């Protein structure tokens, strides 16, 4: 089975091993040790870690398209947010009549703005299976349509990056509109239950954390399976010399579309897991700057390595958590400096440090080499 193929790789084994160990240790330390114990992992930390893992999954998704396919998506936040909204809508419906206005069907913000009935696109989100399917399908469908348009017309490079940015920007503005029926700027909040469990209990938090860990493991596995397959090599070929790949008989746009859609779905899953853990989804997740930040995580961790993306996401967000607490006035300096220093001194990101310096030349930066696809002609 192609999916399990990466399990034979040492790097994947190592990655999954570390991940599951971490899940286990955190869970044990959280459950077994009493609060106040020096090694006790508080619910706060568990949720925090859960959030990092969501970001890590998101970063993996971005690395898949950027690192291996050469599509610098500056709009992946959109897929993340859409997954989040799908989940948020489910959680919203779960509130039922416990909202402030006690309306059994309409979420509070709709009552509040005088909506008379539930908009049609909210139908079905009271059912978990439907909502969870939407978590995959909505981002996937958007990626499919958008990708189909773009790849078919052979939009590449910065042009593609910018229209992905335009996409997420447009969605952000749209979701900010209160008429859209997604709560406008305030977004969706005040969730209570997920699958019948009370979201505000530590057990559920732990459960979500573990679920995120597993999702990350699966996502990683899927990405790994893709990149180690022949398709992965074709992706790299597309990245470095798109035209040449076509002449070999590969339908580049379909390869791109497939990988892009998979990546979007992973981002959607990440978003869906993110929302119940942080307790809010609002249009700012669509913000283009957030999407750029994701790319920064990946670059920082090391492009085209997948595990680098995970490291980058966790590291940057951990740094954010620490810095915003320790030096609230100056954390942006620290973060900015981190970005600058890593780029200048670690050209292959943090993963570059880990990689054995076996390969003499930089293979991870295909399109940046001047003498590649650009001169495919005479």
């Amino acid at each position: 089975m192609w999916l399990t193929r990466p399990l034979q790789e040492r790097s994947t084994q190592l990655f999954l091993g570390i991940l599951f160990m971490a899940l286990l240790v955190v869970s044990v330390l959280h459950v077994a040790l009493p609060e106040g114990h020096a090694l006790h992992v508080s619910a706060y930390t568990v949720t925090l870690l859960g959030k990092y893992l969501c970001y890590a999954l998101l970063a993996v998704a971005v690395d898949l398209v950027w690192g291996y396919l050469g599509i610098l998506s500056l709009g992946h936040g959109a897929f993340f947010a859409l997954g989040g909204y799908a989940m948020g809508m489910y959680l919203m419906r779960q509130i039922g009549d416990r909202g402030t206005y006690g309306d059994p069907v309409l979420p509070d913000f709709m009552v509040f703005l005088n909506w008379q009935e539930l908009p049609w696109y909210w139908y079905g989100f009271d059912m978990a299976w439907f909502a969870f399917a939407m978590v995959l399908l909505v981002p996937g469908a958007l990626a499919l349509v958008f990708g189909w348009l773009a790849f078919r017309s052979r939009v590449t490079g910065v042009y593609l990056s910018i229209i992905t940015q335009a996409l997420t920007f447009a969605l952000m503005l749209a979701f900010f509109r209160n008429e859209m029926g997604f709560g406008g700027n305030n977004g969706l909040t005040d969730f209570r239950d997920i699958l019948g469990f009370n979201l505000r209990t530590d057990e559920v938090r732990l459960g979500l954390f573990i679920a995120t860990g597993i999702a990350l493991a699966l996502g990683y596995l899927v990405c790994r399976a893709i990149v180690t397959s022949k398709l992965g090599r074709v992706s790299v070929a597309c990245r470095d010399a798109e035209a040449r790949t076509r002449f070999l008989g590969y339908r580049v746009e379909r390869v791109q579309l497939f990988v892009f859609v998979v990546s979007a779905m992973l981002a959607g899953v990440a978003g869906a897991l993110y929302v119940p853990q942080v307790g809010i989804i609002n249009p700012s997740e669509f913000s283009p700057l957030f999407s750029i930040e994701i790319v920064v995580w990946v670059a920082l961790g090391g492009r085209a390595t997948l595990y680098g993306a995970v490291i980058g996401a966790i590291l940057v967000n951990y740094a954010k958590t620490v810095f915003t607490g320790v030096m609230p006035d100056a954390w942006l300096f620290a973060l900015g400096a981190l970005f600058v220093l890593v780029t200048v001194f670690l050209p292959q990101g943090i993963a570059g440090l880990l990689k054995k310096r076996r390969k003499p030349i930089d293979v991870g930066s295909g399109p940046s080499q001047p003498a590649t696809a650009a001169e495919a002609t005479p």
Partner: protein
Amino acid sequence: MLQIEKLNQYYGESHTLWDLDLDVPQGQCTCVMGRNGVGKTTLMKCIMGEEKVESGSIRFADELDLIKQPLEQRARLGIGYVPQGRQIFPLLTVEENLRTGLAARGDGQKIIPERIYELFPVLREMKNRRGGDLSGGQQQQLAIGRALVIEPRLLILDEPGEGIQPNIVAQIGEVIRKLIAEDGLTVLLVEQKLPFARKYADRFAILDRGRRMAEGEIGELSDELIKQYLTV
């Protein structure tokens, strides 16, 4: 004109040039030969400064150690370079491509010397076309023309005949000879094609796996040497 001594070069871990010596006398055409991948292009790049040299010296015009000179300076010293793969600026027009050579001339010349167009009339015809649109052979001519714009003392040609129609290849050979004769130009040529080398070069040097294996007047290029180093 150019003396290379004990040159060593590495690509990362891999040692490409080994203790390489090469002498390019003034006013002559020296031809470097060797199989694919032995390091000919690498050597040229070292002379131009595009690749870092590990150890050794490259002396130009008897006094200067080129290695200490920044890359840009070498063109200004009068070294013209026609790289393998042409390396024209694809989005600049032909004329603009040629004009890039003007920067390195000390005399502040602002227009392309007429001679270039005389040598390669096709360049005049295509003056306003983007360099990248030219056919392969046209690009090669452009690359040579561009190198001549700086009126070099030493001209480095890395497989200049590649992809060029036979009559123009011959013409290039003639141009080389003419420049040598008229301007006292020194030429360092990389060429695989024996007839061309035999016809237009004065001296040869054979590389193998990054080492210089033989050197001498072109007349001394024996079948034995050819068999040993140039056949697979």
